[in-house]
């Protein structure tokens, strides 16, 4: 992995006696796309504001490229922010908006003109110099907000739910745009969102947060396939989270039935949580299944059918392209490598809280 750029050391922050961040530690590397992902109130925006200098941590320090910037005001920090509601300057035209930071830094007229052209080209809005922000659509305003930030050549771009206000189609389009821009600029992106799909699509690294704690840090694949606890499993995608007992290495007892798995090192007869993704549950004829059950619900979701199967006293969520009507007797089978074993949470703080978003 490339050079380490930002360290957050033991950051704690509370508002009105309410703990928002508790001893948070995080390292961000150069040229990394890091996403802070979590439900509202998990501390992700506060973390971003501490990075940007808009909030000061109660304890802990922010180290940027070896320097302590904890108490540096935002106007002196080598990073720029793209705000959730764009925050364009409505009394200035697009060119003036983009030039704002450069004029403060007293850059030459030619330099500024070049930069404006370059930035507008990067965000695909050439020729918009003289338009007013009000006359642009939400997506266009967001692009201008990005252009205004990147002309200052920040080493890190902070993005606070920048696609939150856009409609689905535009959001998906902008996700690809953002990846392209990041690759073109070669700088670090720190991205805040509560949208797991956005996080999975764009990130190099996802930091899943809940209640002021980091739940898991990892690549999108590892977060999705190997969630470390029930909160992460539940927050990222749909999943079946079942209490189980690890009998021995590579053998787990789920709902009283023995399943082969691939995990080792959990000990003997230890209570654990298992996660099985709904697309990993195979429905087979009853006699071929490890568990037998009855289909209780069926919904057509477009790409697949979503079914609930009552088996072993648990309602299994199943995604399958094959239709099994309600009332049909089916067998359930899960491949050993699709069973993810997790330790039970040790303390209340780690206790996973499922929040619907």
């Amino acid at each position, binding site marked *: 992995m490339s050079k380490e750029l930002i360290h957050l050391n033991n950051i704690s922050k509370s508002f009105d006696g309410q703990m928002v961040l508790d001893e948070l530690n995080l390292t961000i590397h150069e040229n990394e796309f890091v996403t802070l992902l979590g439900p509202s109130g998990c501390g992700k925006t506060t973390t971003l504001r501490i990075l940007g200098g*808009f909030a000061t941590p109660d304890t802990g320090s922010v180290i940027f490229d070896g320097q302590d910037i904890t108490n540096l005001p935002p*106007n*002196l920090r080598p990073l720029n922010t793209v705000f959730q509601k764009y925050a364009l300057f409505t009394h200035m035209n697009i060119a003036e908006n983009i030039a*704002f930071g450069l004029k403060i830094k007293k850059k030459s007229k030619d330099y500024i003109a070049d930069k404006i052209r370059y930035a507008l080209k990067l965000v695909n809005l050439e020729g918009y110099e003289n338009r007013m922000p009000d006359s642009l659509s939400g997506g266009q305003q967001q692009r201008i907000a990005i252009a205004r930030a990147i002309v*200052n050549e920040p080493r890190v771009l902070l993005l606070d739910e920048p696609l939150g206000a856009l409609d689905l189609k535009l959001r998906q389009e902008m996700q690809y745009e953002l990846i392209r821009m990041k690759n073109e600029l070669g700088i670090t992106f720190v991205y805040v969102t509560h949208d797991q799909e956005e996080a999975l699509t764009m990130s190099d690294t996802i930091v899943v947060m809940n209640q002021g704690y980091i739940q898991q840090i990892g690549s999108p694949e590892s977060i999705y396939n190997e969630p470390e606890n029930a909160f992460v499993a539940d927050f990222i995608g749909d999943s079946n989270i079942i209490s189980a007992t690890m009998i021995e290495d590579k053998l787990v007892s789920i709902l009283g039935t023995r399943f082969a798995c691939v995990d080792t090192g959990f000990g003997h007869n230890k209570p654990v949580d298992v996660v099985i993704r709904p697309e990993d549950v195979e429905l087979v004829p009853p006699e071929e299944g490890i568990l037998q059950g009855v289909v209780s619900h069926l919904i057509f979701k477009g790409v697949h059918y979503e079914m609930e199967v009552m088996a072993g006293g648990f309602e299994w969520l199943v995604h399958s392209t094959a239709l099994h009507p309600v009332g049909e007797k089916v067998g359930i089978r899960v491949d050993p490598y699709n069973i993810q074993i997790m330790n039970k949470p040790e303390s209340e703080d780690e206790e996973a809280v499922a929040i619907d978003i």
Partner: protein
Amino acid sequence: MRNALKKFYIALIFLFLYAPIATLMVLSFNASKTRAKWGGFTFKWYVQLVHNDDILRALGNTLLIALLSSVIATVIGTIACIAMNTMKKRTRTIMMGITNIPMLNADIVTGISLMLLFISFGLRFGMGTILLSHITFNIPYVILSVMPRMKQLNPSVYEAALDLGAPPVTAFFKVVFPDLTPGILSGFLMAFTMSLDDFIITHFTKGAGVDTLSTKIYTEVRKGIKPEMYALSTIIFVAVLVLLLLVNAAPDKKEGKTRV
């Protein structure tokens, strides 16, 4: 038929509202000294007015006080709004309530209490005390017109300016202030009008020998009504009318901008 009735009704309302002022205006052009008969059209009362040193001095005082008090009240009121905007909602509501009370207070109460306050502080009555009292009653009007603008502001705009490298003061004047301008401008004009218009509070706080237009008219009228006063009142009415039109037109310019 119904339409005609409606029109008649409206005409009646306007007649009642504006007949007194219209009478005054007509009389200000009346060549005859008595109100009873029309002696032909003349500008002579206006001419006499312009040559009356007392009146001109009072006019000067009025304009000076209106200008100074509205400028100072605008600065204080705007700063107050910035502070109130950072308060918690509850505290802010209470503060807004407190600043609104003086507007609802009867002028005579405000006037007498200011007078008593100035006496107890041992201030010499004159231009200074008039100015102080005008600033006092003007501040709430400024706050009333700036605060809604303030609340509409997107707080991220200020942060965005900081983020792009502007120090706090630069950030305020470059991005927050322009968004507040329509509110500040209409607050200023409202304060100016209120100051121009005031009689009661000035009457209690002016001291001997100093007059503004309204107190001057009052003294003159007690001595017997001269047509010059009609002319003067007409001018004041027109001036205030123009100012009010300006106040109402100012915010429209911003909002009237076309959206594509």
